[in-house]
């Protein structure tokens, strides 16, 4: 245990052959991974040519620029703990970020759940970005047939399209339409083989800021996925929202694939709005952010599977309106209550 600030954990995912390892290699060669520990799972080829050396149970290699690369046997939790112990014990070069390159057939939701909820990892790590690579040559087929590929899109903050030079004309537009319908939260960008922009660099690549997110729907081979936007025009009573959301996730968590948005809490306006973010039933601890809320109230995108998102929006609005009515009623009766007490 150290008193250090939490280490940022970024996640790079994408279906088999999307180009994850190539991107990591390019970023390393461009010096963008200095001070970063890269954790690669067993299915992917390690992006280093140097011979791997054992370090307390973790196979690790070091790039010339100081990036540490480790291969894990698939137990990412154990590997992360080992990596943090090695860092604390001075057994590896110091790092401030961890980049996890997932398996091509991984559903990142379980990894994100581990990062957010594991009692030993949670205080020591802080989730950064999830970047998903999509191979433009195979995107329509992969997304139609592979549930994992859809899950990788849903989890993304940024989607990078790869192999544009080999794809058919119009492939980018088609992929943007399909991916944007699955995940209206994510920023969508092309990534050329010579592009060394670090997608995890908060300053180099800003996630798309949508002032007015829109609802969407798409049918994949397996599921109907649709999104909606929950909006409330004024600061929200935290107890009302937390009660409603916790019951929604308790009952329908597996099908509430993702929520992300911003909300001003009533009584906390001076601290700025908070970011609301969840992946399935796992909710990130809300944190205040400096940016102003779009409407001074709430604007939260919900991506759901096999649920009519309009029903979720109606439920949210109905319960918040109910709570406001109750509040007004209590305030109306306060003079009478005070008179009885007196």
């Amino acid at each position, binding site marked *: 245990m150290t008193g250090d600030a939490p280490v940022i954990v970024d996640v790079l995912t994408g279906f088999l052959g999307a180009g994850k390892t190539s991107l990591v290699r390019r970023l390393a060669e461009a010096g963008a991974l200095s001070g970063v520990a890269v954790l690669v799972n067993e299915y992917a080829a390690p992006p280093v040519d140097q011979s791997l050396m054992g370090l307390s149970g973790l196979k690790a290699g070091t790039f010339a620029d100081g990036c540490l690369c480790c291969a894990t046997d698939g137990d990412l939790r154990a590997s992360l703990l080992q990596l943090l112990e090695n860092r604390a014990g001075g057994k590896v070069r110091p790092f401030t970020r961890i980049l996890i390159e997932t398996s091509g057939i991984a559903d990142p939701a379980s990894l994100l759940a581990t990062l957010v909820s594991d009692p030993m990892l949670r205080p020591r790590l802080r989730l950064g970005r999830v970047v998903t690579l999509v191979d433009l040559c195979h995107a329509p087929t992969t997304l139609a047939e592979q549930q994992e590929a859809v899950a990788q899109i849903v989890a993304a903050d940024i989607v990078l399209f790869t192999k544009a030079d080999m794809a058919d004309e119009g492939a980018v537009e088609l992929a943007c339409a399909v991916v944007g319908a699955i995940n209206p939260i994510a920023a969508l960008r092309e990534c050329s083989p010579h592009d060394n922009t670090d997608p995890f660099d908060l300053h180099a690549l800003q996630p798309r800021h949508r002032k007015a997110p829109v609802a969407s729907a798409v049918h994949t081979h397996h599921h109907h996925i649709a999104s909606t936007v929950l909006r409330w025009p004024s600061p929200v009573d935290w107890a009302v929202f937390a009660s409603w959301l*916790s*019951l929604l996730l308790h009952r329908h968590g597996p099908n509430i694939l993702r929520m992300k948005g911003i909300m001003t809490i009533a*009584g906390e306006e001076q601290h700025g709005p908070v970011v609301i973010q969840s992946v399935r039933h796992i909710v990130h601890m809300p944190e205040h952010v400096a940016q102003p809320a779009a409407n001074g109230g709430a604007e939260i995108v919900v991506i759901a599977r096999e649920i009519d998102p309009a029903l979720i929006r109606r439920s949210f609005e109905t319960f918040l309106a109910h709570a406001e009515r109750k509040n007004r009623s209590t305030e109306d009766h306060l003079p009478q209550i005070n008179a009885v007490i007196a």
Partner: protein
Amino acid sequence: MCGFCGSFSEHRHWSAGPLTAARQGAVRIRIAHMAGELAAPAGVRLTAWRDRFQLTGPTGKRELATDLASIWRAVDRLGRAMPDPLDDAFFDGLEAQAKE
């Protein structure tokens, strides 16, 4: 420090929110009230009790819960129905109250 995992940070459920410690008590009372509204159709009553929540089922059976996640698990065990915010009964109940 957690005696099990050695972590220095105490677990806080997300529903505790980013609120200052001074507001936590008041919000707990408010959560008991609002979650109680959602649990009422199941016949379960909620009250804030110290740093926890006390639930009383329709038969009088009681349970303690630490946060909203454990509240809903307890409501499912104690209640005569499982509340669902997407169910017709949820909308019917709240919309009927709005007309009163």
